[in-house]
């Protein structure tokens, strides 16, 4: 929450920008995920990339409508681990979805408008559904998370 414990449009806008930053990273990261998958298995990665791009663009439009400056995409990113196999690719996708989920939950914590919370909870659910698919591909057990996006 804000330093004084109160929520206002400023806390919400800052959290919206944190989600934009996470979505930028996810869009970039899914390029790597897709490249590490066989051509006939790239569908879910392509769909996820589109979903994250759409979410990012929606948030950017929302921020701009408020007169706020959306954070730009970084010039480059480093992978958290080498992506050398299909399992690595799925594991990276899990990292991406879980990172985005953390940003959406942070937004839920900071938001003041119910419409923003509705957007956040919808996108958070979509991220977790994708994460379930990737955890399955990565051989992770369990494939579900009781509290997506919440700090452990």
């Amino acid at each position, binding site marked *: 929450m804000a330093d004084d414990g109160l929520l206002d449009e400023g806390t919400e806008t800052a959290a919206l920008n944190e989600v934009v930053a996470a979505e930028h990273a996810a869009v970039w990261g899914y390029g790597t995920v897709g490249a590490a998958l066989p051509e006939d298995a790239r569908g879910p990665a392509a769909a996820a990339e589109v979903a994250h791009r759409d979410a990012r663009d929606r948030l950017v439009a929302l921020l701009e409508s408020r007169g706020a400056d959306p954070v730009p995409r970084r010039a480059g990113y480093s992978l958290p681990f080498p992506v050398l196999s299909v399992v690595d690719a799925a594991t990276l996708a899990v990292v991406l979805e879980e990172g985005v989920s953390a940003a959406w939950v942070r937004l839920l914590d900071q938001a003041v408008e119910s419409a923003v919370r509705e957007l956040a*909870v919808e996108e958070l659910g979509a991220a977790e559904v994708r994460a*379930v698919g990737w955890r399955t591909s990565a051989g992770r057990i369990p494939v579900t998370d009781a*509290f997506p996006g919440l700090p452990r």
Partner: protein
Amino acid sequence: MPPVLVPVPAGSTRRAFLAGSAGLALLVAGCTAGSADAPAVSTEEADRLAGQVAVQEAVVAAYAAATTADPALALSDLAAQATEQLDRLRAAAPSSTASSTASSTASSTASPAASSSAPAVPPAGADVRTWLREQVAGAASAHARACAGQTGARAALLGSIAAGLRGHEAALA
């Protein structure tokens, strides 16, 4: 050196996230919202959160009923997570004593499993997995709607649980 691709919010390490979100940290720690350090919450918000306890109780009951009806479904991981979610909701809901507290406020957001007219067990001849998935989906939607009416840490908790149940729904598909 380019930034590491870990798309958590900028500056939001786990420690920073906890430190910067006192209410959320309380929920993570399992403190009750009625404790001295808990953030203020309106009566309406508290009632709504208590209402979601009933919704989640119905999810836990649905997992138990599905396991009884079809033990081969191997639902132990999902059922355990549903129980964790219920425990966290109870800890966060002031004066929550389960469904007795929740009945009136749950009605507007209740899942099929929480509705008094819905079956508490899979109908005879029904596909148990499909029935369970419907119960979970209804609860996820109920939590998501309730999330929009909450603020701060309670919104975060309800939203996270709603998303977790969306994941269950996917796993049961």
